[in-house]
């Protein structure tokens, strides 16, 4: 081995929430089976850019490193995805890395995904089971429905579908594609269904289902393969029925 092979990373950086973003290039030593996280770790180890200048190490968020937590989502070569499963060997070089611009950038590749958690609260994405007395065992769930709910429960609020959606931006209040699969998941549950209409009211309101433009990028981009657009259309039908009921029977 005469010379160390390197990988060129082009990273969009930002020093703070209100600072101007800028691009910085890095050459990191190549190892077999590297992912974007381990490439970023090389920069942390030796924070020197491609021009040989010492710089601040690039910061990012990551947790599970097996694509189940959603923390390391970023835009890699134009596509929002998790950095942990973005293998350097399979990426086009140089590798361009940006934060997901749909969210407020805190610093470098760290974004604030609070809006997703706020949306989960708005639609009451939980099943209330607490009471003053024992409510007994929950009802049984048919296996086919359990399997479908399990697919919907794979959502890790990673934010990729919001980044991919043309209708999630500063000009709209759209909560984003992910929320509808969670509404669907909790409305399908026999105990959760007791609060079905509260969730339907939430997605009928501001930033709700009406803001979907059917570009269907979400379902293409979702790393967990969640049938996001099927949930959207299914809830469209629920809202058709529910709004007629509200309109004609109240």
């Amino acid at each position, binding site marked *: 081995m005469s010379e160390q092979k390197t990988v060129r990373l082009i990273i969009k950086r930002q020093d703070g929430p209100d600072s101007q973003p800028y691009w910085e290039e890095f050459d990191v030593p190549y190892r077999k089976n590297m992912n974007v996280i381990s490439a970023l770790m090389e920069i942390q180890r030796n924070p020197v850019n491609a021009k040989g200048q010492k710089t601040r190490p690039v910061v990012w968020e990551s947790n599970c490193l097996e694509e189940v937590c959603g923390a390391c989502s970023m835009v890699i070569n*134009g*596509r929002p995805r998790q950095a942990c499963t973005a293998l350097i060997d399979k990426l086009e070089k140089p590798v361009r890395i940006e934060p997901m611009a749909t969210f407020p950038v805190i610093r470098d590749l760290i974004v604030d995904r609070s809006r997703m958690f706020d949306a989960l609260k708005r639609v009451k994405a939980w099943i209330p089971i607490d009471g003053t007395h024992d409510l007994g065992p929950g009802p049984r769930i048919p296996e086919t429905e359990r399997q479908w709910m399990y697919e919907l429960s794979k959502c890790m609020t990673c934010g990729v579908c919001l980044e*991919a959606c*043309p*209708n999630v*931006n500063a*000009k*709209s209040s759209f909560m984003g594609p992910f929320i509808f699969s969670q509404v669907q998941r909790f409305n399908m549950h026999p105990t959760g269904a007791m609060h079905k209409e509260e969730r339907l009211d939430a997605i*009928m*309101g*501001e*930033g*709700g*289902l*009406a*803001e*979907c*433009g*059917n*570009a*269907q*990028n979400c379902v*293409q*981009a979702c790393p967990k393969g969640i*049938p996001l*657009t*099927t949930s*959207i*259309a*299914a*809830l*469209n*039908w*629920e*809202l*058709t029925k529910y*709004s007629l009921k509200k309109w004609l029977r109240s």
Partner: protein
Amino acid sequence: MSSDRAFVYRRLHSLLGVIPVGAFLVEHLLTNYFATRGEAAYTEKVLWLNNLPFLILLEVFFIFLPILFHGVYGLYIAYQAKPNLGSFGTFRNTMFVLQRVTGVLTLIFIAWHVWETRVQVALGNVAKEELYDLMVSILSNGWMFAFYLVGVIAAVFHFANGLWSFLVSWGITVGPRAQRISTYVTMVIFVFVSYIGVAALLAFRNAAVALGS
């Protein structure tokens, strides 16, 4: 109700796009198609339509106001989108962008077309019996012919693809298979209705060429 405003407007937008605006588009193009059978056949249909009772009410409540609402709210919808075809060049995303582009094109075209035809009739500059000649003279200009061609095809695309999203927005086609089949069906509608519209344009155009020679 107030918090549901976006929902109600969006559903109204979707509904009006099909009924009555989409239905009117098909009716209008079918009537125009009679131009392929000559001036007499065309003028007969025009006069029949113009003899409908309560015509002005039909025009205001089933054509003008629905198009106005659909167009204005549609501009707002188009403004809210931030297209990202560069990073997501998928079929549906392309259709999403085309739906917004053709919507704006159609609105411009309709405004111009209504000014040139219906408004001129209302102002008394053109008699209903002269509409055939008016269209022949408009389409004798090559640029106007191109403008009408683009306008008609944009309107028909917007209608056909709008039917697809109508079916999704009301929750009728839910799964990917149903949505794929409705894509095929609506695209066949696009091709067929475009043919009807363009055939009429060509009929006027050919009459203009015949007059010129």
